[in-house]
């Protein structure tokens, strides 16, 4: 575990927000559910912000979702976060685990390659040969660790795990016990209070394994939707980009109008409609807030290193190309129609939009 930490590029949520968690803990007067590091209300504040304690809002949009999620976890149900890519499912599960269990590091990364070792336990073969099956030779999975410690284990992309792995979770969630027959007939690990599972999945993904209804029953589902409020999305992008640039100690001038352009473009294409209800064809590319953050970040870097530090419409235009155009000819057409009809109109009235138009057009002509 320690080693893994050392390898991480990004510190865990509990490390990044240690101050906030400490402040919340100190001020927390609510009842803590068994095994929880904080009361449910303090966890809510951690995720949705609390200005009195200078706790920053981290998840934007659907506050009720966070409340429902907390209640599901309190009721010892698993929590299943589903939705399109880039809607902050993983972020949310990390934050929940960090605040509830004090640790977000118990993670199973779902894929077809996941085996029982990853969800039950494996063996240290050298020790196994030397000593036989002893507790020392057993290598617990994150799931087993979480049960033992009464923590939350996160299963990312749960629907990518093969069905037999999903089945392990059924018994873990319903019986709250994992037997280890190799250590003796009655050897088992019982889940300490506070244990739960947060899964994330993108149900529309191709190549996923449909969850069995038995497993579904043990989870409460929450659909995380892309942000629909432009103001929130703008705020989020500013904050994220500011943080990233701050970490790298880069300073740029990122005018509001440019952020507006980015958010407007994303909201238009995501909804298939402009603010004034002009219909347009939705590209199939993922137009998530996460992508918007990436674009804003990349645009800022370009402005800082290749320009004079002023971020403009042209930077956004060039970066947008990368998200949308990748290799989908249909999308290219849809975005071209958007640019030709809607962006062109706006470009008449605004320098930022006309720079944006110019950049998108130039890229197209090259390709």
């Amino acid at each position, binding site marked *: 575990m320690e080693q893994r930490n050392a390898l991480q590029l990004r510190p865990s949520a509990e490390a990044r927000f240690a101050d906030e968690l400490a402040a919340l803990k100190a001020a927390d007067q609510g009842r803590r559910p068994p095994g929880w590091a904080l009361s*449910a*209300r303090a966890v*809510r504040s951690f995720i*949705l912000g609390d200005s009195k304690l200078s706790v920053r809002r981290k998840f934007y949009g659907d*506050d*009720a979702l966070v*409340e*429902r999620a*907390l*209640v*599901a976890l*309190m*009721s010892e*149900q698993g929590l299943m976060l*589903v*939705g399109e890519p880039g809607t902050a499912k993983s972020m949310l599960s990390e934050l929940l685990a960090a605040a509830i269990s004090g640790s977000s590091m118990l993670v199973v990364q779902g894929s077809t390659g996941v085996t029982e070792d990853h969800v039950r336990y494996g063996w240290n073969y050298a020790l196994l040969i030397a000593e036989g099956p002893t507790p020392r030779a057993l290598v617990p999975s994150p799931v087993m660790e979480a049960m033992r410690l009464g923590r939350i284990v996160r299963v990312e992309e749960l629907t990518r795990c093969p069905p037999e792995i999903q089945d392990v979770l059924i018994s873990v969630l319903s019986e709250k016990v994992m037997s280890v027959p190799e250590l003796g007939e009655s050897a088992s690990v019982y889940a300490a209070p506070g244990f739960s599972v947060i899964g994330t999945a993108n*149900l*529309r993904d191709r190549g996923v394994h449909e969850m069995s*209804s038995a497993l*579904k*029953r043990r*989870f*409460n*589902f*929450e*659909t995380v*939707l892309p942000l629909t409020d432009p103001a929130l999305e703008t705020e989020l992008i500013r904050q994220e980009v500011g943080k990233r640039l701050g970490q790298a100690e880069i300073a740029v001038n990122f005018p509001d109008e440019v952020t507006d352009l980015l958010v407007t473009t994303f909201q238009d294409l995501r909804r298939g409609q402009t603010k004034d209800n002009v219909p347009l064809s939705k590209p199939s590319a993922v137009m998530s807030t996460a992508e918007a953050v990436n674009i804003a970040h990349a645009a800022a870097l370009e402005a800082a290193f290749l320009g004079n530090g002023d971020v403009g419409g042209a930077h956004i235009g060039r970066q947008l190309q990368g998200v949308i155009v990748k290799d989908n000819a249909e999308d290219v057409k849809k975005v071209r129609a958007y640019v030709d009809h809607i962006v062109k109109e706006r470009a008449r009235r605004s320098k930022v939009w006309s720079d944006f138009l110019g950049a998108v057009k130039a890229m197209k002509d090259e390709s």
Partner: protein
Amino acid sequence: MTVLDPAATAIRLFDSERDLHFFPIRHHSPACALHLREALRAIRPATVLIEGPVDFEPLITELLAPGVVPPVAMVALPDGAKKGRGGTTYYPICRHSPEFIAIREASELGATVRFIDLPSRHAAMLSDRRHRPDQPLLPMREVMFDRGAYVDAMCARTGFRDGFALWDGLFEARARGTDWRGFFASVGAYCSALRAASDPDELQTDGTLPREAMMRACIQDAIAARTGPIAVVTGGFHTPALIDAQAESVRPAGAAARSNAWLIRYDFRALDRLNGYGAGLPLPGFYERVWQRLIGDGGETGDSLTEDILVGFRAHLIESEPALAFSFPTLRSMVETARRLAELRGLSEPGRTELFDALQSSAIKEEIEVGAHPLLAAFTTYLQGDRLGDLPPGSRLPPLIERARAEARSFGLSLEDAVAKTRELDIYRKSRHGQTSRFLHAMRLVAPPFAERLKGPDRVHGFRADMLMETWTYAWSPAVEAALIERAADGETVRDVAATILIRRLGDLEREGQCNNAAAAFNLLSIAFDAGIGSAADTLVAAVSTAVGADTNLLRLTNALVMGQALDSRAKAMQSDGTVKAFADLLPPLLDRLARRIAELLPDLAAVNADTVGEAIACLAALAEAMADPDPPFPARPLRDALQGLMAAQLDPQLTGAVIALAALIGLVDEAEAGRRLSAALAGAFERPGDAIRTLSGVMALAPQLFVNDSSVITAIDNLFGAVDDQGFLDLLPQLRMAFAELSPQETDKVAAIVAAAHGAGEDDIALLQQVPDARVLTDHLALSERLRGQWQADGLAAWLGPAP
């Protein structure tokens, strides 16, 4: 969660010096209703002033009559003379409306009740911005509770998701408290903050300020005439503007106007639709349950409201939508979730929002598209409720309702309850049945929820022997009354209103640039006929006549001809009746005009090409239908001449087929001649052999029998196939299949027999073919044989292709 800073916006509600007490409320709020009841019992006012249009005051006695069961509504009908000011005014009342509670308590205390708002049809009451002119008008709108800067800021601060959840969390959650002073102080503080954040210009334009001037004047009058404590019950938004009423207080002009006001039965569905316009808290079914709990009515089961509602909803689903029903363990966890959510949100018990959240969280195991899920929708409908209000028998009703009821009864329709009943009508042979049918048709227009026709002659195909009867279901319900109320300004009898509606629809056609749409105009005429609206006949006929002259669309015109003819035959078959006669006399000149117009336009079909031929064929099919009548009510001569002309013209092949078929059908040519023409057309030289087949499609569309009866045509097709190789045949097959799809199975067999005989095939061969499961398999097999044959020939195995030795 104390989020209010009452000190900042507190207002002096209870003025013991003047013995004047203000109660800021929100409409349909059980919490306000309960606290108000307690307050009135404590204060024992001599006068209760209520925000309600003064002209509704006479209805208060009616409202208190035994036998009145809310939901009911006070309504004022628009003044028919004033154009553009349509829309009925509604003042809906539930059991849990604070105003209703105030009226009832006052009457028990022997206090005087006064309404203190402007008259319902005062200009200031009509000035809210509406999208449609006939949208309902609400004297008390409270959209300011739903959105706006203050509500948004409060939501952000408290974590409630919207204005409704905020209200519930702050106020409905406090319904059980005993401190009514504290409760109203909070409501007052909240409302004055709302008011401080609203736009003063808006208050002027939406009529709020003049209304409040009226309320102040009424309060002054009450103070002057005081005999004891005075209670003032108004929407909380107005309270701050009333508290310091000075002796200023002249009533605005027009404050004495009377209106055409009535108390009517109402229902929760209609009520919730009004809530869409900002009438008050939504989901009346939910709040009524809350209210019943609060007053300890409805049998204490020991279960919480949450349990009651969720258990009831589950039972309702099992009964009506089993596919959506959830299991019992899910129900348990739902109740648990609702409780925990309430706790997390600092509420003493779960409210509306928590119920929805619990349902979503526990019962929906899949991704939800932007808040929309059938289960959530079903829950909304369930909580909306379906309660119907009631009035005591013999209540005074608006004339239109009264007349409609009387007329319905005179036809022997039973109106005693809201259960649907069925009625069969022999519309042509029994004159009373004909009249009943016309009444029901008129009610379809005026109050659609009343009746529905299950069976009967349809408007286009009209008079058919098998359609002598109509079957209707009907039921009298508050929804019918509500629908009638909405139309009440349009006339005093069902027939007058129906006429107005039709004329208005005609106007709509004009506005939409459709005044040249003969089919649409004829359709209206047809409806008028069914409903027996003789008074509208002249206007409609004139409009149809104009449309016919202006329409250049042959399909619409020919469809109109079919409709007109059907109408004519129905008119002739009906027992004589004044209204029917009006139509019977007006129709022939109209049909004459129509037929001549069609004849004028028919030659244009020569310009039709393969892309537009479908519509042209539909025109000819309609003509065929109209002209099949041996004694048509329109002149056939011009039409026949025009067709004759078409036959000589160079046409799209499919159209050629259709024209030949039509000519044969109406006896313009005999069948033998038709066969000859068809054979010639089929043998015609086209770049694509498929085109010749399209001729067949044209025939089939109109007169498949023609083709079956004349074997010379079949021979011609057969020859056509002889001229193409097998690959060519496979290419033709799709076209051919399309053409033959029109034939009935017997007809197909007949054709098969003729073709088989011509080729010397016996019945066995046909039987063999019939075992082929479908045409595609046959095509595939034929293609395969062909490949095999080629292969064998290439391999020097041609001998295998001969008959077996």
